[in-house]
């Protein structure tokens, strides 16, 4: 909690805190319930199929383990990092991409996952916005090779059709509306240097 009311101890403020915690608990509980339901839907579908093979048992067990860990993670976030009530400066993760040229063709750096913070996961758009700084023509070429698509509750920054890039250093940010997700640092290497 980083708001300016941290030092207030009035009864109203205390009850506000309780109310906020219950509200956050409801949000987390809803997410956990949905996740549990998805797991049991998957397991019951597999069980109802004609053959429940050993690999299905293994895959279901792994899914159950993954669900349990995700639930634990949500509860941990609820207790240790409740959402801020006002806009607060935060740290942002950075993505680094490096493009190299081989025989006139630019390399395709592997996709990078951007985890969306727990409290920002509702109503995510299919694509995140990518904002780049630099000369307009160069940024247009580079930007057209990048996309950040929603996969589950994360965005996957992917490179495709990287053509005609202009060597240099580019900076940018990936955001959904006015919520920043990650910094972007891109180096397009100049072969001559």
């Amino acid at each position, binding site marked *: 909690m980083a708001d300016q009311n941290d030092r207030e101890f009035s009864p109203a403020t205390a009850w506000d805190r309780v109310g906020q915690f219950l509200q956050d608990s409801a949000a987390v509980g809803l997410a956990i319930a949905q996740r549990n339901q998805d797991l049991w839907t998957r397991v019951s579908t597999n069980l109802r199929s004609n053959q429940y093979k050993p690999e299905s048992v293994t895959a279901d067990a792994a899914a159950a383990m993954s669900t349990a860990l995700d639930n634990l993670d949500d509860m941990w976030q609820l207790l240790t990092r409740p959402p801020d009530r006002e806009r607060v400066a935060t740290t942002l993760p950075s993505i680094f991409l490096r493009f190299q040229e081989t025989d006139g063709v630019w390399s*395709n750096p592997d996709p990078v996952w951007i985890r969306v913070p727990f409290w920002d996961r509702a109503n995510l758009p299919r694509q995140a916005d990518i904002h780049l700084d630099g000369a307009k023509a160069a940024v247009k070429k580079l930007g057209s090779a990048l996309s950040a698509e929603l996969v589950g509750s994360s965005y996957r920054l992917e490179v495709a059709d990287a053509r005609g890039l202009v060597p240099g250093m580019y900076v940018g940010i990936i955001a959904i509306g006015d919520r920043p997700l990650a910094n972007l640092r891109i180096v397009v290497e100049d072969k001559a240097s």
Partner: protein
Amino acid sequence: MSAATGAPAAKTQADEKALRFATVSVYYNCLLREGSSGGAPAMALPLPGGPLSLADALAEIQKGGLGAMRGPVWRIVRGTPVGGDYPGALEPALARLAPSLKLDHLNSLRKSYHAGANLLGAALVACAEKQPEFGELRKHMASRKSDFDRATEAVLGMTASRFLSSLDDRRTSAQLRALQQEVGLDLYRYAAEFADAVAFDEWWRAADPAPDGGMVVYPAACVIRQDSASMITRVTVTALARCEDFSALVRSADPQCWSLASDVMAKTQYVHDSYDLTPAPVPAGQGYKSRQPPPYRWLEEIVNVPSGIEGPTESSFHNVLRIDKFNVVDKKDRKTVTVNFSLARSVNSTVLWDTRSGGILVDQGYIGVRRLAADTWRITSHKTLLFSNRTPNMNTSGWFDLGQMLNVLTPAALSWWLESEVYSAADPAYSSTKRSK
């Protein structure tokens, strides 16, 4: 392996996987003569798991018969210098499968043909450099009537001396210089590789004759280079083919047909773009007709490559390639096929237990089909490949770095990949009478 001689049918999927793993094992055991490496010899590093020993690999491949053995034996022969000792595992394997295939006879053929190839190589270099000695060398080649001169007739459809006589065109020297660039070999070494291929083919055909009709692909040169600093691997495979049906060659080079007779390509189809993977089919065997933008197509491919460790498990890669060029020239005096491709998007990949997005950083190359004589063609296939580091946050050095394991294996796997693709051009699936696509 879909070699020119074909392979026995009715193999299970597990058999085919085991055969592919054994074949790659042979390649891994026999690369050192042709492989070259910039910086530290990364390709000579031992693998964490390791492929089969040569003896075990040959025993496994033998189950596929002579057709399956042809490519691996050629790989071993090519990896042994003329007059050198073949690996000990080769002779017993041949004795079990085809007792008439004697290595002594192969050696005498190789020595004899190399002598002729020296003269041919010198003449070609003189022609490329427009040296006056070319005329004398050509006359000497014709007067010598060597065994090599006679043997080349079976492959080229004309003797080597007649081939030299045909090099009168003003453009010839430029074409020969371009040839060096395309195949990655100087003319002198190319002639030596050609002599080896002719000797091997004559020796092998005694036990395993080519089927009548259809296309015959003769093995030839393979150049492998790996830069150990970047781990980028470049492989260029060149083969000669005898084929009366130009359209079969075009279809074998058509990107959407690559999976028809391939050991590696599980699926190839044109799609709308890098992200929209709905099929966008076009008639097979037709090059680009329009130069209107975009003059290129996107090809979705699924590739399965033996992992090289822990038995015949395969790595799988799902990519979208951009086919920058697919030009077909079909004129009376000039028939060529040119395909240029490069990686547009690496969708996902699986190596052993590790499935993830991406997986390939660099994947580009070309295929060129050029006419040498009436029904004789040169097929050159080149690929430059770099897999991504699969443990980017956990780097260790050398072969302890499991994330770079694929790149260590690439010289062997990629040369097998390209060679099997070139040999598969002879598959009946590409002929105009047996089209399956």
